[in-house]
């Protein structure tokens, strides 16, 4: 009896010691090399980043690039920030989290980085626009953008001779046509609330000023006024969706669209790899959401999908810049574009994926605005509010709540903006 216990204790002790040892030896085997740790948030890009890291490490002697693509990366990044354990480079989207990170002074100013000259100014401006109050520095290198609008089944469109709509009325006529042909116009995945934001954003860039959130923060206008057209148009789209659109999630919608159960899908280019995994043969193209009846008012909804930021705590900024140089090199960007069907932020000639054919001219002309939801605080849960509205169908209630909640959730930011304006005014 006693012997057994001693054994158990010894065993336990051994396990504990080995666990501790394993913890310590983690970063030591990189004899003399500078280790640069990159954490990126896109789960669908895991393999590309593994390839990139391999390529980098085989061509660089003095730097070792360590890439991590954890699940639920945003939560994990935040928990790592909480414990003040900063990676050197983070790959995140250009959304409100970036605004928070800039505001919290976690990121380093990289305006001295040479590679920024290669980046299209439009995207650097988008990032600037995300800062709550203007700063002097630049805190991110935009890498690729995505574009949202309507994806459509090209083969199906060709068979029936359907035309790409340029205005809202044309879109509605098209939906009728598709419906009369016995095909489902749209398939929605509204069980996952964030998918409600895709058509919302695409309509909002056409119908509301691009800086509406900042205008509201300054107290110049209200959402009720600026967003007035969007809710009705959302409801019109909903009519042409499948039965019970709130029963199915994003994955279900991707599968259904891949199988040809619907002609169109209101989502961004980022969904294409997911759709293709359900049907690699599918010929997908896209068009810009025609939210307005004035064709020239309709613009592309495009935002920074992936950007690289260097944290303030990064010990070796030069090495980090070298990693960025590598990532921004022509071949690496092209490889990324081929895999992810994204839009490059680098100002060079690239081969774009065919799914972007319908959006190409907008991209080249720079007729695009950022996603509105990149300005929405995540805890306000605008996506869930839109879903609620689509179920209840009460426009006034929805927009009034939107305005009310906005003031509450952005109270500190609004205060900050006011203070800033005051200090500028003097």
């Amino acid at each position, binding site marked *: 009896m006693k012997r057994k216990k001693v054994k158990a204790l010894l065993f336990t002790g051994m396990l504990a010691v080995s666990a501790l040892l394993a913890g310590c030896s983690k970063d030591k085997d990189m004899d003399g090399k500078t280790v640069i740790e990159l954490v990126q948030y896109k789960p669908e890009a895991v393999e590309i980043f593994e390839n990139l890291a391999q390529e980098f490490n085989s061509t660089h002697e003095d730097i070792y690039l360590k890439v991590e693509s954890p*699940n*639920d990366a945003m939560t994990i990044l935040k928990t790592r920030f909480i414990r003040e354990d900063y990676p050197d480079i983070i790959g995140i989207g250009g959304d409100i989290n970036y605004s928070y990170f800039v505001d919290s002074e976690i990121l380093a100013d990289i305006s001295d980085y040479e590679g920024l000259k290669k980046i299209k100014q439009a995207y650097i401006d988008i990032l600037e626009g995300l800062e709550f109050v203007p700063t002097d520095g630049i805190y991110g290198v935009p890498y690729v953008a995505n574009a949202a609008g309507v994806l459509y089944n090209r083969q199906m469109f060709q068979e029936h001779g359907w035309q790409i709509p340029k205005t809202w009325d044309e879109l509605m006529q098209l939906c009728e046509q598709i419906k009369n042909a016995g095909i489902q116009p749209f398939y929605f995945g509204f069980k996952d609330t964030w998918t409600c934001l895709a058509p919302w954003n695409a309509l909002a860039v056409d119908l509301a000023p691009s800086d509406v959130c900042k205008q509201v923060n300054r107290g110049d206008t209200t959402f009720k006024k600026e967003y007035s057209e969007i809710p009705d148009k959302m409801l019109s789209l909903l009519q042409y969706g499948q039965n019970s659109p709130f029963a199915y999630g994003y994955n279900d919608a991707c599968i259904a669209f891949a199988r040809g159960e619907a002609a169109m899908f209101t989502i961004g280019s980022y969904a294409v790899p997911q759709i293709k995994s359900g049907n690699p043969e599918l010929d997908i193209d896209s068009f810009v959401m025609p939210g307005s009846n004035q064709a020239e008012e309709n613009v592309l909804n495009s935002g920074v999908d992936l950007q690289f930021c260097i944290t303030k705590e990064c010990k070796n900024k030069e090495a980090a810049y070298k990693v960025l140089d590598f990532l921004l090199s022509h071949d690496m960007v092209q490889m990324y574009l081929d895999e992810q069907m994204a839009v490059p932020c680098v100002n060079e000639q690239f081969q774009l994926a065919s799914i972007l054919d319908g959006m190409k001219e907008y991209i080249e002309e720079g007729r695009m605005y950022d996603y509105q939801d990149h300005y929405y605080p995540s805890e306000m849960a605008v996506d869930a509010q839109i879903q609620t509205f689509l179920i209840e169908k009460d426009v006034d209630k929805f927009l009034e709540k939107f305005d009310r909640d906005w003031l509450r959730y952005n109270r500190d930011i609004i205060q900050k903006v006011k203070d800033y304006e005051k200090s500028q005014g003097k």
Partner: protein
Amino acid sequence: MKKYGEKVNWPITILLILGLITVAFPLYMTIMIAFKQPSEMTNNIHGILSFPKSWSLENFKEAMRVTDFWNSLGNSIFITLLTVVVSILIHSLIGYAIGRNKDHSKFYKISYLYIVSGMFVPFAILMMPLVKQTAQIGLDNMAGVIILYVVFYMPMNVLLYTGYLKNIPIALEEAAKVDGASTWRTYWSIIFPLMKPMHATVAVLTALGTWNDVMTPLVIMSGSGKNTLPLAQLNFQTQFGTNYNLAFASYLLAMLPILIFYIICQKQILSGVVNGAVK
């Protein structure tokens, strides 16, 4: 019991067997989907619930590769085992110290209430401060997760041990004391072995809780590159979102170890749970 006549109550037996459908159906569904290929999944009940064309293990191989099954399994076993061992050693000790004194000492009475009331603290409020705290002292790893579990299960286990201690007459210890044995020795040689049924209960309840937990390893171990089995499932959700067959193969894999363990130790587990309830 036998006094009531030996007649088996068949209607109830049959009703109970029929009732098992509610338990079996979800498991049956999981197995069927896990073995199928996406092309076999037509959009009707027959397509989902019929037998697969072939019982191929392809889905499982792929699921094991993605979730890094053996490593995740190893981590889960390591964490659960160590948590259980440490919990039994520490919780029985504190349960003993408190149980023997709480009726006549205010200090122990308060300690008892203090620890047991920890049962009502929602994890949500501890989470963020704990993340910070464990990182500061270098415990953002499996060791930290184990320590946290030992603390989280302390209230319940102390309640169980002190309750059970009432059944062990203090006279036993006094006899040993007369023989000159210290309290410490008396505890390990007499009381600890006597509490064996309660150790089993504590082991079962603690193990069931830690094995299936997602939250604690998620927030504490994130970034260490190590997964537990449930954590790997979370991973799976995003990576193979469109392939339900692969996902279900992975669910089945996640449930299998504990199911096998349960089948082997069913008797001990059930009696352990019962003990916990009767205390």
